[in-house]
């Protein structure tokens, strides 16, 4: 029997801002969900709650405890003084993927290799380009063989080559049974990769649809459909 995550009535407020307003949805194990919406729509807040980083003010979240979760934040700043290898070795020990420093270095080396960063292993992660940092974050997420990936703007800053690579990695992970929730501003990516598309605006979940609904959007395509729902344009 496949596992599932059930979120219901999730609300989150940061001071005066209502980041999430009674959001509810269900995810089956192995599904991939794209979270789309304008800036401040609540996508990152939802991923932070699912990742155990923030707590919802109200609402319930069931089924998440049985998953090994990996989270990729958006725009992480790497502190200076830590090489990519040392940082990934640190992550692998925290995640319990390595028991000794030597094993951690091996795990980190493999993760760097997988993301094409092996030749930069000794460089300070703080000095990486945006795209390289994103790949490093992806590398840390894959350590410990997670079965659910929460990715906040994972393709942000990636060059076209690595965007293609990223999509292929997601497909491979999905084929391997991973559950994936990712936020994106690239509606085409959402339509191409996801099993379902969740559209957010002002903290509310407006639509929970299949990619086919977006592909068949008619004149103007998915972008026009997006604008029609968030109320900043005509359908």
């Amino acid at each position, binding site marked *: 029997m496949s596992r599932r995550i059930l979120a219901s009535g999730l609300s989150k407020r940061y001071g005066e801002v209502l980041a999430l307003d009674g959001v509810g949805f269900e995810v089956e194990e192995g599904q991939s969900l794209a979270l789309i919406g304008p800036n401040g729509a609540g996508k990152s807040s939802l991923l932070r709650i699912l990742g155990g980083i923030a707590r919802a003010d109200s609402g319930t979240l069931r089924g998440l405890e049985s998953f090994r979760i990996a989270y990729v934040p958006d725009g*992480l700043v790497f502190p200076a003084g830590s090489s990519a290898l040392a940082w990934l070795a640190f992550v692998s020990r925290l995640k319990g993927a390595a028991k000794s420093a030597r094993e951690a270095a091996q795990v980190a080396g493999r993760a760097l290799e997988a993301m094409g960063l092996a030749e930069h292993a000794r460089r300070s992660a703080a000095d990486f380009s945006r795209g390289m940092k994103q790949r490093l974050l992806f590398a840390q997420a894959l350590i410990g063989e997670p079965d659910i990936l929460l990715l906040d703007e994972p393709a942000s800053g990636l060059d076209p080559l690595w965007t293609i690579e990223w999509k292929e990695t997601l497909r491979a992970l999905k084929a391997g049974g991973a559950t994936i929730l990712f936020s994106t501003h690239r509606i085409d990516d959402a339509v191409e990769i996801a099993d379902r598309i969740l559209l957010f605006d002002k903290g509310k979940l407006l639509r929970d649809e299949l990619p086919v609904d977006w592909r068949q959007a008619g004149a103007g395509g998915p972008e026009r459909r997006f604008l029609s729902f968030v109320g900043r344009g005509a359908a």
Partner: protein
Amino acid sequence: MKKALVVAGHEFARLLRRGWVLASAAAMALLVLALSATRAASGLAPGFSGGYGSSLSSLVLLLSSLSGALVAALSFAEDGGGGMADLLRSFGLGDRRFLLGKYAGILAAIAGAAIVGLLVSFAASGIAGIVPLRGGSGEIKALATLVATAAATSAVYAAWGALFGSASRTVLGAAGSALAFWFVTLFLYEAIGWILFPALPYRVAKPALALFLAIDPAEALRLGSDFLGNHGAALGPEFYHWQSFFLGLPGIVAAIALLSAHLAFPLALAARRNRKASR
């Protein structure tokens, strides 16, 4: 506990790679060496006697407090503002374990740097003949007092640095708060005492002075160092009595309790702040 140790080890290694931790060790070594050379040039007796021991103690207090507060504030602010603390939370690393692990790593780096700086300067000054050390028990005790002062000062100020780093949204804000705290506790607080206490009646002044000195980390550490170095009598009769108390068993217990309070208070506030940030 194991995860906290992993965090501590990573933080320690990371800080050692940063130039300014090594720079603080070098500053400690050079300034102690300069102080020793000045004393030797003035033709005073060798060893740690008189004002020399006190000057060394003040120098150690000054540098250890500055590097402790600043390094910890910067380090915590980098992780908090940059999102690293959030990422680590997603690994199931609790806020308390993160705080204690990071704090332990920072403390090991800065206290280690201060102590290495001290030992290097003494070895260098001994070899160069600037301070002809005789290796007597008095000198060893004086050196141990300085090492203890460096460790305790680094620990207390790093705890405050952890609070400022956790509370600030920016690295600059954290550094500014740490510097302001350092200046107030080391210089301004003492000046307030000089103005306040002569105006108080004697009966009130004594307990008020004890409380005044115990509250401020710099004053408490300075006195602790003076008492350990047997310099209490030079400060006045009241201080001699307090020194006699603190060198006995009840006094040692009281001093440990006071030091623990100076560590626990800012760390508890930092933990509270981190918990709030994760909500």
